[in-house]
């Protein structure tokens, strides 16, 4: 191909790579699905991530007549109510964090909302070495239908690395 001015690959050729940015920042929502995960998300939020919001869901029973509404259902880490639809409307990706053995059924509400808007979901389950198989299975079954990618990690430090890798 004589008209081409560069050949495949070499260290010398690599220096001519264009240095301009090749992507815009991504908006990421990280949602803790259970009480132990709230603490994890709180620690993650200490690192500066300007395009990432950290959210929780109420773990107490609904007040009053128990009727459920996604309006004002989510909370930020300061406890302010947030609307699910508003939160994910501007999101590029949603990461749901759960603890093995805990109830992760809220994944269905978030997952369904994301599915409607074609937003990528990642599920991350924290499972220690002593986590019984059935506890992990229960949490997996809650999350599996609603996460394009599920990760079972042994330590929360993985989440930090994952968010960095995903440019969150």
């Amino acid at each position, binding site marked *: 191909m004589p008209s081409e001015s560069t050949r495949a*690959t070499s*260290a010398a050729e*690599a220096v001519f790579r264009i240095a301009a940015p090749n992507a815009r920042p991504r908006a990421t929502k990280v949602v803790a699905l259970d009480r132990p995960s709230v603490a994890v998300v709180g620690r993650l939020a200490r690192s500066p991530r300007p395009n990432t919001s950290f959210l929780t869901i109420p773990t107490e029973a609904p007040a009053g007549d128990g009727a459920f509404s996604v309006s004002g259902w989510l909370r930020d880490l300061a406890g302010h109510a947030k609307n699910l639809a508003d939160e994910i409307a501007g999101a590029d990706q949603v990461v749901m964090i759960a603890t093995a053995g805990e109830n992760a059924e809220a994944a269905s509400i978030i997952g369904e909302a994301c599915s409607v808007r074609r937003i990528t979901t990642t599920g991350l389950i924290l499972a220690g070495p002593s986590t019984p198989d059935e506890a*992990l299975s229960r949490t997996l*079954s809650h999350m599996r239908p609603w996460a394009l990618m599920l*990760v079972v990690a042994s330590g929360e430090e*993985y989440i930090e*690395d994952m968010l960095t890798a*995903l440019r969150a």
Partner: protein
Amino acid sequence: MLRKEQNDLLTQTGPNTPGGRLFRSYWIPALLARELPEKDCPPVRVKLLSERLIAFRDSEGRLGLMDEFCAHRGVSLWFGRNEEGGLRCPYHGWKYDHTGQCVEVPSEPVESGFCKKIKLKSYPLIERGGVLWTYMGPADKQPPLPEWEFALVPDAQRFVSKRVQESNWLQAMEGGIDSSHVSFLHRGELNTDPLFKGAKANQYNLRDSRPVFEVVESAGGLYIGARRDADEGNYYWRITQWVMPSFTMIPPRGNHPVHGHFWIPIDDENCWTWSFDYHPTRPLTDEQIKAMEDGKGIHVKYVPGTFRPLANKDNDYLIDRAAQKAGRTYSGVEGIGMQDASLQESMGPIVDRTRENLVSTDNGIIMARHKLLRAVKALMQNDVAPPGVDIAHQRVRSAAVVLPPNRPFIEAAKEALTVQDGTAHASV
């Protein structure tokens, strides 16, 4: 993305580097046994982990792997005479045994004992499963010999090849745990390659090009499960094994042999891609071996007399745009091995991971990097042996299974993911 210092840590494997110390914790493949076929055969130059070495099989069949250069004036011992229990430098006749010990310096009186003061750095070299393995770490940390299943089956049940890949080891290895590319890059081969075609599950791969992934940590590395829709509401799972630092086993297809890889750094800009096929319970057929020798499956055709692929970057991988347009191959490059290598080499010798934009389906890669970085840190700070050294971590299998939608693969396929002597892999 990775920060530059993280990328450097994982991609640099020379002496006295953290990544190099990680690789020097393991027995790694150094040569094919057939490269040193007989006693006193010609020596072979080997570069591993940025160290230039010479390998030879002496008059008694003992294997040696040592510094390539004569201690006298730095001549390459590749020119040496392999005779009478050692390798002799042709320049002035200095001779070394298989441990690197100098045993003769003709110019010096024997009585002076001068030769005893000369010893080349050497590493153990052992033969197992058609492969010569070396351990390049400290002698007091030498682990048990490798117990990968492919290396323990009878010779007739195994085929092993290697090829030079002109890229850093990590970007090559990451291709091996990136299951989502199969439905694109290799889709032309699933129904035509003799080592892939005919498996019932191929239709699941081709029908569902958007697999869903589950990544689960294992003792030695990772299980990477790719889930696709099967029949009657069930899921077809392909579970890849990754064992640290660079072993992968690809899930089987039908009753075809099972295959996998090691990626071993030659230096920071080149690596060996080792490829193996084996069947745990029966000999490979003549047709299968012929296909592997002809570069089918994960193997490649070579430039004659070398381990360099015939399709390589100097000939643009013999890209065939007409085949690409007609859909016979997806990228225009022929063969699964070179389809992978061509794209991985196109990234540059060491890909700049500060510029990549990973997505959710790349979590297998993200987790592998995380585990490698964690292992390097534990090794450097607390001298902790990394995962994959323990032979129990090596007794693993990949699997392909159909499961009901509510069964986690890690629980339902637990037995299938470890070596079960006398049984075949779980496959569809």
